[in-house]
């Protein structure tokens, strides 16, 4: 492996991925607060800087100067590692997402085109649950523990329909490497998979919202019941890391949804002007993010047992059925 390639990867991984996700997550909080405010007929943060655009930076600085507390009873090593374990998957998930077609022989992606891209997404997103469960356990606080347990159960339950929702696009991709995210996007040039997989897309949306613990599935941090759930005992920068992970994952699932179902970077004139690709992708991501905020503004939190029942008794069979029908149709009609 030559040095230039290694350097390129390092720069892409560190600078683009981390800066992109961190800044993206920070400004996602701003986006959410402004949109949520409009849903509630308010204005939202508009004081720090023009239009309140410096609000995320002000929040970060505030969090940095907060006292960093570790409970006396806590398992200190795990307590410190939990936010790191939570935030890393959120940061590296975007690596396989292509942000544009080939320009001058260079693939426009954030880091890599690997032939098991979808599998990578599944595998890495599963790691995040460890961080949350460990955070809940190591805090030595009953609310944290309850939040951690809920998070673990919920995320594992909803990972199954999530994975099964991925199968639809994989089946529809007629290529050597149907698991490669790049191939899946290329296969959507003429027709977005959301047209062929409307049920799969809906399942993906619901399961993804549950997977990132957001309203109406924000059971692990239900503030009325569990104060703040697994991050009750966290403060300062460790708390900021959990926040970063939560919003980073929100960003990531929107990217994945846009890539697998909404045609990724494809849009009018991308053939002629490849640099339009990232713009289209970002627009689709913003639409999905808006939808997630919209859900939060609309629905009350589900009861926990209903949430689990919904996951196992409705989402999973529906996702299985969707995969079966898709597979059968592809075999009968020919993919």
């Amino acid at each position, binding site marked *: 492996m030559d040095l230039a390639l290694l350097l390129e990867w390092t720069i892409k991984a560190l600078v683009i991925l981390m800066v992109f996700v961190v800044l993206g997550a920070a400004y996602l909080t701003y986006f959410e607060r402004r*949109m949520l*405010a*409009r*849903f*509630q*007929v*308010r*204005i939202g943060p508009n004081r720090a800087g023009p239009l309140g655009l410096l609000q995320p930076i002000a929040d970060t600085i505030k969090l940095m100067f907060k006292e960093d507390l570790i409970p006396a009873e806590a398992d200190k090593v795990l307590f410190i590692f939990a936010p790191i374990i939570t935030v890393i998957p959120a940061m590296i998930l975007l690596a396989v997402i292509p942000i544009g077609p080939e320009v001058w022989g260079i693939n426009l992606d954030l880091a890599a085109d690997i032939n098991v891209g979808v599998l990578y997404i599944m595998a890495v997103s599963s790691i995040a649950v460890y961080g949350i469960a460990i955070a809940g356990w190591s805090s030595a606080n009953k609310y944290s523990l309850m939040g951690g347990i809920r998070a673990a159960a919920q995320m594992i339950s909803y990972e199954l329909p999530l994975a099964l929702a991925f199968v639809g696009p994989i089946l529809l991709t007629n290529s050597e490497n149907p698991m490669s995210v790049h191939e899946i996007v290329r296969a959507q040039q003429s027709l977005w998979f959301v047209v062929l997989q409307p049920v799969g897309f809906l399942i993906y949306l619901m399961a993804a919202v549950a997977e990132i613990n957001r309203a109406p599935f924000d059971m692990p941090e239900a503030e009325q019941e569990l104060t703040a759930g697994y991050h009750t005992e966290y403060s300062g920068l460790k708390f900021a890391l959990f926040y970063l992970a939560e919003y980073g994952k929100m960003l990531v699932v929107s990217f994945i949804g846009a890539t697998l179902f909404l045609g990724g970077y494809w849009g009018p004139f991308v053939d002629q002007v490849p640099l339009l690709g990232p713009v289209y992708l970002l627009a689709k991501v913003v639409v999905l993010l808006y939808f997630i905020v*919209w*859900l939060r*503004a*609309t*629905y009350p939190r589900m009861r926990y047992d209903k949430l689990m029942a*919904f996951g196992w008794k409705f989402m999973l069979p529906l996702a299985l059925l969707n995969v079966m029908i898709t597979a059968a149709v592809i075999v009968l009609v020919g993919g």
Partner: protein
Amino acid sequence: MNPFELLRGLWTTFLNFLERPVTYQYPEIKRPVRERFRGRHELKRYDNGLEKCIGCALCAAACPADAIFVEAAENTDEERFSPGERYASTYEINFLRCIFCGFCEDACPTEAIVLEHNYELSYTDRRSAIYGKDKLLVPVPESGKPTPMKVEPGSFDRAVPEMEDPK
């Protein structure tokens, strides 16, 4: 979970999204308060410039939060601050204690203390929360002269003015 009801919910919130925010941008736009709003106190003057407050300390007695401190001194015709025998040489309200109940206003026999409409009270230390006469006393009206003033002997003997029916 009825999917149509879920969609109806989404539609409802979306209609709200399109509405104009009802927020008033406070420091730039200040909404007027009600006429009987109880904000920061003011010590009033008569049209001729004399202070209405006669230092009787009934307000301090009425205050449930013990926020008012009054110290009275004697008026003379050479140095007259208010009608009658005495005036308030010190008048302090601690706004960290004041609960803005308006009992002082009710207790005042000369209608000297009135809770006005200023609600923008903030301090950076406890000492500056105590407002003295310098801040509470209203400016001298155009028709009057500043206190202490030199007056004709015997012209301001009566402390409590003849008032109309209580408002």
